[in-house]
Structure formats: structure tokens, C-alpha cells
């Protein structure tokens, strides 16, 4: 065992050029694999975050005729039983309306929130770029695009018509930008009571919205909530069911990224394998005499397994270092005008450890062929042809 290790080390040391080349090869493979993997993961997480990070991930609505939920206090209570898997629970009273401004009218969506709770889902406060949040009744926020179209600014009073023919005047206390133009263009955000009164809902709400800690488990949690809620006239939706095409796109991306990663690693494996196979031939004289002197076949093959192992470990360490270098320079040089990286890179230590391990295991597998050759080598061949 230890002799095999010592001989393996010497072989690697004496073939320094070859050793450096192969370690470089492995580490480039590992770094590319790590870079691509981290980049794709970063892309996906970023995409998921922008798509559903600031929206309701599991939504409860009513299937009654008026599509309204009556005893929502109880539903909220029941949904909160699922904490901590369910993170933010909030209700909303929504309805279509028309904004009547100087030149024209614009279709809008009144969204009545418990602002403090909904803020945790929609990050309203963060998006507020002018004015303040609504406090009293009949105070509202409007979005950037709507403000641009209508010329309304914070402090103005607006006239809104409801579908029933009624109308109301609201005070605009601020302007928001939630980074999605369709929202900025249509949502008028206000408190629950203002919306309920304006839309004639009484004390009912139109939906209970929530976020979950593991976004990809939203369907599972949604189903469990569906079983748990006591009201039979409710329907539980989740973002995954509503975004099938996004999900299959992500899946395709993942699969192609795995393919690339696997091919890179196979190339690494073949590289190590061929170099080690050459080295058995190069070292056949040494192996022959070692066998004549009584080294056992198993020990002789261990020499190459150890070489593979050491090459793999060195390559993995260097590859991870290179990979970090690549990721770092990517975040430094591939940047948006404002200096933020084009793709926020996601560092997943589990994934990095896995690709390092994979390189080491590949190197060991690659060494099995030369190990076998060396185990079978008959000293007489070498001594005759010496």
C-alpha cells in the first residue's frame, strides 16, 4: 500500500511535464463544468426570482358565484398552520375599474391589500419611488407607467369608476415601480377597506395569497393546503400549474447543461485514461523488475490507482480554483451598465463539492484500465525485451 503510494508519487514527480499537463487538463474540465453549472443555476434562480419571487406562489380563490371569500380570517389562520413552509400570507380584494383622467380613460385593477402583509409578497415599499404608502381610507398608490400615461403624480386626486356605474375619488399618496410594466400600468394599490367599499364586496375578499419557502414545492404545499381548508367552495392554485411553459423551458435548459457537463467530464476521463495507459507502457521496465523482486500484482496495480487518485485530487482542487476565477471574472466583466452582473452567479457549495468528487472518481475509474494492464504484466516480457 504505502510502497505503491511512494512509487506512484515518484512516477508523477519524474514525469513532471506530463503530470502538469494532465492536471491542467482535468482542472480545465472541472472549471468549465463548474462554470457552466453555476451559471445555469444562477440564470434559473434569477429567472424564477424575477418571475415569481415577488408574486403570489399559492393562491386561494372562491368557486362561488360572486367569486368572493367570506370567512377569510379562518382561511388565513388555516394557511398559517403551514408555516414555516408557507412564509407570507395575505388577503386581497380585487376588481376591475376605470380611471378617468383629463384626456381619456384607462382600464385599471383595484387591489385592496392589508398593505403591511402584502408588502412582504410584492415588496411595495421597496418599489415606492415617490411619496408614501397609503394610510387612511381612500388613499392609493399608482404605478410608474400609469402615472406616465395619465400625467398623475403623487398628491393628486383621481376619479375612478366602478363596473356598477358608481365612482369615487382617491388621493394618490405615492408612485411605485414593481419592475413589471403590466403591473405598473394597471394596479391601483389601496387598503382593504377602500377596495371593499368601492367594489361593493362588504367584508369579503377575492383571494388569499401566499409565498412558500421552497418555490419548487409550491404544488405539493398547495395540494396539502387544499385538503386542509375547511370551506368546500375554495380553489387552490400554484405558480407551477400556471407557468408550465416556463418550467419545461427551465427543464430543457437543465438537461442541456447536464449534457454539456457530462461530456466535459467524459473528455476528462478519457484524457486521464489515455495518459495513464501510456505511462504503464513507459514504466513497464520498472514494473517488470518490481514484479521479479516480488511485488504483488495488486500492489502493482495500486500504483496506477494512486496516480489516478492524486491526479484527480490535484485536478479537482485546481479546477475549483479556476472555476471560481472564471465566475469571479464573469461577474466583474460581464456587467450591466449599472455595474451589476448580467447573470448573478449562484455559488452552490454542494454542487462544487460534487463536481470535485466526480473528477476524483473519474480519475480513479480512468486508472482502472492501466491498473489492469499493470497487474497482468509479466516480468519475463520486460526482461527479455530489455
Amino acid at each position: 500500500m504505502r510502497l505503491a503510494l511512494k512509487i506512484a508519487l515518484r512516477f508523477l514527480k519524474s514525469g513532471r511535464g506530463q503530470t502538469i499537463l494532465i492536471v491542467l487538463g482535468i482542472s480545465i474540465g472541472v472549471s468549465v463544468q463548474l462554470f457552466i453549472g453555476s451559471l445555469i443555476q444562477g440564470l434559473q434562480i434569477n429567472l424564477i426570482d424575477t418571475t415569481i419571487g415577488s408574486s403570489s406562489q399559492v393562491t386561494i380563490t372562491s368557486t362561488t358565484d360572486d367569486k368572493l371569500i367570506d370567512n377569510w380570517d379562518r382561511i388565513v389562520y388555516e394557511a398559517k398552520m403551514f408555516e414555516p413552509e408557507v412564509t407570507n400570507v395575505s388577503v386581497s380584494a380585487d376588481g376591475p375599474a376605470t380611471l378617468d383622467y383629463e384626456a381619456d380613460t384607462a382600464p385599471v385593477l383595484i387591489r385592496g391589500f392589508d398593505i403591511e402583509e402584502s408588502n412582504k409578497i410584492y415588496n411595495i415599499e421597496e418599489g415606492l419611488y415617490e411619496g408614501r404608502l397609503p394610510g387612511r381610507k381612500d388613499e392609493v398608490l399608482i404605478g410608474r407607467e400609469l402615472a406616465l400615461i395619465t400625467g398623475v403624480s403623487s398628491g393628486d386626486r383621481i376619479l375612478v369608476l366602478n363596473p356598477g356605474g358608481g365612482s369615487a375619488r382617491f388621493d394618490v399618496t405615492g408612485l411605485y415601480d414593481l419592475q413589471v410594466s403590466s403591473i405598473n400600468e394597471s394596479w391601483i394599490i389601496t387598503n382593504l377597506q377602500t377596495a371593499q367599499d368601492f367594489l361593493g364586496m362588504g367584508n369579503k375578499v377575492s383571494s388569499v395569497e401566499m409565498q412558500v419557502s421552497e418555490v419548487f414545492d409550491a404544488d405539493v404545499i398547495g395540494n396539502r393546503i387544499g385538503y386542509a381548508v375547511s370551506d368546500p367552495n375554495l380553489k387552490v392554485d400554484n405558480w407551477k400549474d400556471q407557468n408550465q411553459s416556463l418550467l419545461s423551458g427551465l427543464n430543457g435548459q437543465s438537461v442541456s447543461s447536464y449534457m454539456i457537463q457530462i461530456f466535459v467530464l467524459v473528455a476528462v476521463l478519457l484524457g486521464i485514461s489515455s495518459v495513464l495507459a501510456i505511462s504503464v507502457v513507459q514504466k513497464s521496465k520498472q514494473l517488470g523488475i518490481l514484479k521479479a523482486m516480488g511485488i504483488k500484482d495488486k500492489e502493482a496495480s495500486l500504483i496506477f490507482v494512486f496516480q489516478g487518485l492524486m491526479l484527480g485530487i490535484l485536478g479537482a482542487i485546481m479546477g475549483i480554483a479556476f472555476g471560481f476565477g472564471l465566475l469571479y471574472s464573469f461577474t466583474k466583466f460581464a456587467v450591466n451598465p449599472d455595474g451589476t452582473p448580467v447573470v448573478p452567479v449562484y455559488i452552490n457549495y454542494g454542487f462544487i463539492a460534487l463536481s470535485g468528487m466526480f473528477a476524483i472518481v473519474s480519475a480513479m475509474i480512468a486508472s482502472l484500465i492501466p491498473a489492469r494492464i499493470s497487474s497482468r504484466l509479466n516480468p519475463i516480457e520486460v526482461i527479455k525485451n530489455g
Partner: protein
Amino acid sequence: MADIVRLENIDKFYGDKIRTQVLFDINLSFEENSFNSIIGQSGSGKSTLLNLVGTLDKPTDGRIFINDQRTDTMNGIQLAELRNRTMGFIFQFHYLLPEFTAKENVLMPSRIMNYKLTPEVDQWADELLELTGLSKVKNNMANEMSGGQQQRTAIARALVNKPSIILADEPTGNLDSDTSETIYKLLRDINKEYGTTFIIITHDQRIAEKTDRIIELKDGRVDMDVRR
């Protein structure tokens, strides 16, 4: 005296399709502590015979005994152990490991037997290096020595496990006659001092004449066997 090596009815064939017989019904034994030489024309089967004794190859037919243990039926692990403990090989080419120093090469059979290096073994290696006149170059890498030094290193290596048999196949074939002379004197001294049995293949008539016993092979048969 007891026989340390015994060959009974040894036949050796080479090749699968075209089978050529190289050794024909060889019966030979070698005594403990003896100093033997094998001579014969090129192709007469000397190396084949020596490799059979050294368990590097197996006979097609017949039995081989080393210290009364039958070797031609042993498995690979048993053979490796037997070679490591009881035999030392010296070939025409030194076969040193160029990745190691002279002393490390000398210690290799001991490392194979037991990786741990005891002070006794370490000292014994130094003694052998002294005996072979290599003290000055013992820390040189194997390929940073002259041909004669390399061959002497190989001799020291063959001796490090204190084997009972040394098998040498033209050990001085590559060396000038003066160096050959010194090396033979060295082998002879070792034979006297440690009682090691030697079987040496040589082309050199003068050297053969100085051994206790000369065996001549001719076309795979023992043609002459003289003791002095």
C-alpha cells in the same frame, strides 16, 4: 550437502500455433552454498532455464523444487513472496528504477517485503553499498551513475533481503573485462561470506572456469556437467 534447487523432467515449449521445444527433459539440482555457471551457445536455452528456476516462467512439463517446495504449482501471490524472500536477480541490464536513488533501489526488495525500514536493514544496505564500492554515489539517482556502478547497485539490490539463491543472467555482459573481473570477485566473496547459492549464465570461458561447477547446455539439453 542438501539441494536447494531441483529440476525434474523439465520440458519447455514456446508458442501456441507453432510449438517449438526449447528444453528437453532436464534433470538438474544445485547444492546449497554452491557457485555454479551455465554456459552454452546462444539460443541453447540458458535464459529459459534460469527463468524457470526464478519462477518468472513456468515449465510445460516437469517439476521444480526450491528448498523442497514445489514451485510450478504455486499461485501468483505465493510466487511473489518466494521470489522476494529467497531469490535475488541480476540481469545483463541493471533494471534500476530511474525515479529512485541508488540506495532506494537497493532497499526496494526490503520495502516490498515490509515497507517499514528498520535500522538494521538501513545499516545492511549501507554495508552492501560499501561492499560494492558505491558509498560515494549512494544518493545519486539511478541514471546518474556509470554503467558499472549501476550494475553493482543491481547486485547490492539482489542481496538486500539476504536471499539464499542469486540468479544472474550474463551479469557482466555489458561491462569491460576489468570491471567484470571485480564483479565476479565480489560475487565469489558474497558466496563465501554469506553462503549464498549462485547460478550464473556467462559467455566468458575464463569466468566459468573459476566456478565450482560448469553446466553446458546444447540445443536444450545438458551437454556437459563438470564439478571441480
